[in-house]
C-alpha cells in the first residue's frame, strides 16, 4: 500500500503542476507575438492572436487558483513508475523506428509478441498465434478490403520490392 503523503507534500505536487502550466501559458503567449501581421484594413473581425491570448489568460488564472489550492482538493504525489512502464514506453518508441525500417505489419507482429512477453505471457505459441491472427485480420480489413497502403519500411522495400 503506498505511503500517505502529508497534506503539504500533496499540495506541493499541485503547485509544481500549476507552475508548469503558468510557464507553458507564458511561453505560448510569447509565441502569439510571432504571428504574421495583418493590415488593419483587411482585419474585418478580430486579431488572430486575441482568442488564443484570452484562453491563455484564463489558463494562467486557473493555474494560480491551483497553486493556491482554491477549488481543487490537494492531489496525491504520483508514485514512482515501475520498470515495466518505462520499458513499455521504450518499446512503443522502438516500434516507431521499426516501422521506418521493416514496415507497419512486421513491426506490429514484433510489438504484439514483445509487449505480451513483457506483460507476463510465457507461452511463445499463444503470443505468436494471437499476434499473427490480429495482424492478419487487420491486414485483410485495411489493405484488402478498404484498399489502404501502409508503410513498408526501408528494409521491407529491399526485401519485397
Amino acid at each position: 500500500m503506498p505511503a500517505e503523503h502529508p497534506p503539504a507534500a500533496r499540495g506541493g505536487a499541485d503547485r509544481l503542476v500549476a507552475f508548469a502550466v503558468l510557464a507553458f501559458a507564458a511561453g505560448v503567449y510569447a509565441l502569439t507575438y510571432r504571428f504574421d501581421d495583418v493590415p488593419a484594413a483587411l482585419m474585418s473581425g478580430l486579431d488572430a492572436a486575441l482568442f488564443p491570448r484570452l484562453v491563455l489568460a484564463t489558463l494562467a488564472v486557473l493555474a494560480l487558483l491551483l497553486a493556491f489550492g482554491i477549488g481543487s482538493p490537494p492531489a496525491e504525489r504520483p508514485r514512482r513508475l515501475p520498470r515495466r512502464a518505462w520499458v513499455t514506453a521504450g518499446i512503443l518508441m522502438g516500434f516507431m523506428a521499426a516501422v521506418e525500417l521493416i514496415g507497419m505489419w512486421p513491426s506490429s507482429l514484433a510489438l504484439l509478441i514483445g509487449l505480451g512477453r513483457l506483460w507476463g505471457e510465457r507461452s511463445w505459441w499463444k503470443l505468436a498465434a494471437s499476434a499473427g491472427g490480429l495482424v492478419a485480420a487487420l491486414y485483410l480489413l485495411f489493405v484488402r478490403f478498404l484498399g489502404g497502403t501502409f508503410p513498408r519500411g526501408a528494409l521491407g522495400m529491399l526485401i519485397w520490392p
Partner: protein
Amino acid sequence: METLLAGMAILADPKIMGLVVAGTLLGIVVGALPGISGSTTTALLLPLTVMMSPVQAIAFLGSIYCAANFGGSITAILINTPGDPSACATAFDGYPMAARGEAGRALGMSAIASAIGGIFSVFVLIVAAPMLARAAYSFGPPEYFALTVFGLSMVAAIGGDSQIKNLISACLGVLLATVGLDLTTGVERFTFGVYALSDGVEFIPVLIGLFAVSELLEQAAQRGGAVESFRLTAVKLPSLADFRKCAKAIVLSSGIGTFIGALPALGATTAAMICYNETKRWSKHKHEFGKGAIEGVAGPEAANNAAVGGAMVPTLALGIPGSATTAIILAGLIVQGVRPGPHLFNEQPTLLYTVFGSMLAANLLYLVIGLGAAKLFARLALVPPAFLWPAVFVLSVVGAYAPNQSIADVWVVLIFGAVGFLFRRFGFSPAPMIMGLVLGKLTEETLKQSLLIFDHDWSLFLGRPMVVVLFLITAAGLAAPPLARAWRAMTVRYRPELGIKD
C-alpha cells in the same frame, strides 16, 4: 411518430442495418474488455467511419455508443472491474451476485434494465431534441457563444475530482483548437512551419492517443494484482419475481438517468451513481444493497443507458456534447463535414432519423445479443492484459494511420498518449480536453461573429437576455461547488459537538 417511422425505414436499408449490427457487436465486445471505456471504444473505432457516408457513420457510432455502455457492465459483474466508469455502481451488487453463482441472473437483469433505460431515453430524444432545436433556432452568434462557454464550464463536473484541473484541461483543448490557419485573417497560428498543421490538429489521432494509448501506459504503470473472476457454469436468467422487484428501480432510474444525461457534461457515470443511491433509498430491501441486491444492478444499469439517449439531446440539438463519448461522436461527425445543431433538423433530417433508428435498434439488439451470448461475452472479460493491451496499441496505430495514410498522425497518437498519461498521473482527466478541442472552434467563431455584430463593444453581450441567463447559469455552476465546500467547512468549524475548535 413520423420521425420514428422514418428512422425505422432507414433501418430497412441492409447496409445500414448491417452497420448497426456490427456496431452493436463491436460495442459490446470492445466495451466488455476490462479497462476499455465507452469513450475509448468509440475513439478506437472512429477511424472505421472515415470511409463511410455520414448516414452510415452516425448509424455505426450511435450503435457503438449504446452497446459499449452495456458491454462495460459485463466486466463489472464478472470480475469487479468496470469496463466503463459508468458501470462502477453496477459492480457494487453485480459482483457479489456473481460471487455467489448468480452471474447469469445479474447479467440478464443488466441487459434488460439497460435496454429499457436506453429505449426510454431514445423516445425522450425523439421528442425533446426537436423541441430544444426549435427553441435554439432563434439563437444568434452571441447566444451560441454563451452556450459554448456554458458547455465548457460544465466540464468542471466531469472527469477528475478537481474542478480547476478539469477547466485547465478544457482550456488546453480550446487552445489546441486554435492551431492552424485562422479563417478570418488567414494567419497561421502555432503551426511552426509544419504544413500538416495548417488545417488544424486532426481529431482522430488526438482522441486515440488521449484515451487508448494513455490507458495502455497507465495499465503498464500499475503494479497489477491478479483479478479474481467467476466462470459462468450456466446462464440463469432473471425470473418474473425479479422483474417485479426491480420495476420501480428501472422506471425511476430511466427518468433520472435521461435527465442527468441531457445536462451538458454530466454523463452516464453521474447518472448511475445518483440512481444507485436513489434505488437504495426507495427500496424495501435496503439491507441487501452491497451484498448482491438485484435492484442494485437494475437501477444503475437503467440509468447509465438512459443517460446515453439523454446526452444525445444537447449534442444533436445544440451541438454541445452531453458527455465525453458524445464529444467523440461530435468530432466524428465534424470529420464527416456535419455540424450538429438546430439547423440539422431542417437541413439533414435523414441523419437525425438515422440516429434515432440506429439507437433504438442497438438497444433492442444488445438485449437479444446480451441475453443470448452472455456466456460468450463473459469469456472476453478474461482476456489477459498481455494480449489485450498490445492489441489495443496496434489497433490505435493502424486506426490513426489509415484515414490520412500519414505517419505524422501516428506520432500525434504517441505524443497525446504521453500527454494523457501525464494528465492522469497528476489528477487531470483527458475528457475535458476533448470537450475543449471539439467546442474550441465554435467558441472562437461565435465570439468573432458576435463582436462584429456588436461593433467590438463587449458590453452589448449584456443586452441579450438569453446571453445574460446563460452567463448567470455558468457563473452559478462554477461558483456553487466551492461555495458549498466553504459553507460546509464553516458549519463544521462552529459545531462544538464534533470537538472541533475554531
